């Protein structure tokens, strides 16, 4: 179908929507709450900026506040415990010394009270040094980066489901290594790749993107779950898809996709070669420790812009 035919079809749909049932429009306007408009017809929403900020970042700010409170509480308890143990060890050292003194006295040995206190203090200091270091709290920026806004595939686009997914992502993040420590992992020391760290930071000019999490239960040759980013351009017909998959500890086979490059060997000439015919299907494998993450590009686009997009992936 030509571009002109598609445009004419779209205009027909747009015109046909004028005949939509009034009840649907009534519900639509009722749900919107009937906001006021200024003389230019622009909706006037009081504190719109603040409302927008709180809707967009409210969850992350709340999560950061929770981290802060929990961290402060932990440190507070930690300090109390340290203080208690220090005083306890001081008392015990004094008690020990008193016992020894008593024995010493019985043996004819004597200790000055100053020496007693000094030794007790030294024992208390050593007990403090043996305490484990406090774990640094994640900053609000790390919490913000750890919980990007993503849409979820499936029938439900409800905010509650989105909230659950966002909450799952609010963990401490080591962005430099592109890994996520799950909230209960400090004891287990288990790390898994954060696929969101592999989302490009730079997008082609004029591109509109959508993200969704895909659970692919039928595919045998691909990972069962992956993050899919669909890109399209309002002013041209090109589209592309990025699939970001955690491959675990298995290096992918050569037959997985059209062409696979390791991160170190991937450069602009590779993109130019893959998109020489206009459209391509290639992947880049990132290795972090024993884990592999595949970022697969399927689609078309300007080679330079696609390279800049892929090069901006810095997990």
């Amino acid at each position, binding site marked *: 179908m030509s571009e002109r035919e598609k445009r004419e079809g*779209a205009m027909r749909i747009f015109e046909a929507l004028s005949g939509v049932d009034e009840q649907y429009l009534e519900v639509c306007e009722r749900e919107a709450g009937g906001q006021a408009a200024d003389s230019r017809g622009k909706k006037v929403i009081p504190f719109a900026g603040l409302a927008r900020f709180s809707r967009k970042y409210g969850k992350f700010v709340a999560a950061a506040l929770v981290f802060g409170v929990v961290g402060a509480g932990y440190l507070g308890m930690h300090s109390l415990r340290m203080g208690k143990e220090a005083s306890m060890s001081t008392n015990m050292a004094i008690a020990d010394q008193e016992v020894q003194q008593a024995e010493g006295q019985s043996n004819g040995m004597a200790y000055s009270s100053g020496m007693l206190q000094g030794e007790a203090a030294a024992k208390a200091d050593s007990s403090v040094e043996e305490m484990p270091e406090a774990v640094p709290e994640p900053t609000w920026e790390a919490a913000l980066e750890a919980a990007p806004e993503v849409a979820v595939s499936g029938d439900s686009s409800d905010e509650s489901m989105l909230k659950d997914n966002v909450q799952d992502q609010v963990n401490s993040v080591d962005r430099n290594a592109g890994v996520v420590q799950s909230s209960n992992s400090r004891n287990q020391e288990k790390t898994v790749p954060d696929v969101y760290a592999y989302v490009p930071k730079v997008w082609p000019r004029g591109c509109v993107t959508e993200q969704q999490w895909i659970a692919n239960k039928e595919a045998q040759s691909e990972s069962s779950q992956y993050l899919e980013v669909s890109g399209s351009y309002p002013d041209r017909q090109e589209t592309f898809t990025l699939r970001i998959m955690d491959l675990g500890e298995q290096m992918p086979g050569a037959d997985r996709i059209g062409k696979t490059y390791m991160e170190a060997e991937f450069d602009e000439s590779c993109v130019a070669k893959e998109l020489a015919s206009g459209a391509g299907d290639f992947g880049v494998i990132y290795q972090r420790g024993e884990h592999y993450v595949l970022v697969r590009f399927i689609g078309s686009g300007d080679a330079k812009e696609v390279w800049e997009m892929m090069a901006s992936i810095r997990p």
Partner: protein
Amino acid sequence: MKDTEILDLYWARNESAITETQAAYGNYCYSIAFHILHGKEDSEECVNDTWMRAWNAIPPARPARLSLFLGTITRNLSFDRWKQKNAMKRGSGEMEATLDELAECIPDKSNTEEIVAQKELERQINLFLGTLKEKERNIFLRRYWYAEEYGEIADRYGLNLNTVKTTLFRVRGKLKAYLEQEGVVL
């Protein structure tokens, strides 16, 4: 002034009906026009034309919901003006993006050669809208009836931007599948 009172003015051929309509629905109709045309003068002209059309239509019409009646007139006038100004010229603007998105709903092929009249297409689209959840339908109408931008829709319903985009992406896919299934040719 209530809708019934405004309608009474129309039926009485009292020209203050226009003034009252402007006061009650001027901003509403301007908003619809502006979302399509993105121009102050064009939008104002469409709104003025709306009052003229309403004056000619009432009577004999006596719409149950005056706002939707006027909004639909404004929408049609605005879209006609947009088509005149743009024809097949590819430019920027929200309407370009809106139509490009709707172009995704065009079925690739149909099983029959039946050509569906515009009224039949309206009927099919209404049936399709009835299959949607209320939230999906509202977001869809806000984008493709009111031609609002993603950010405005997100603000209006307290959603984040990606949720709006994903919802629209899925509903467009459903519309395409529905039109294919019904054998609609566009």
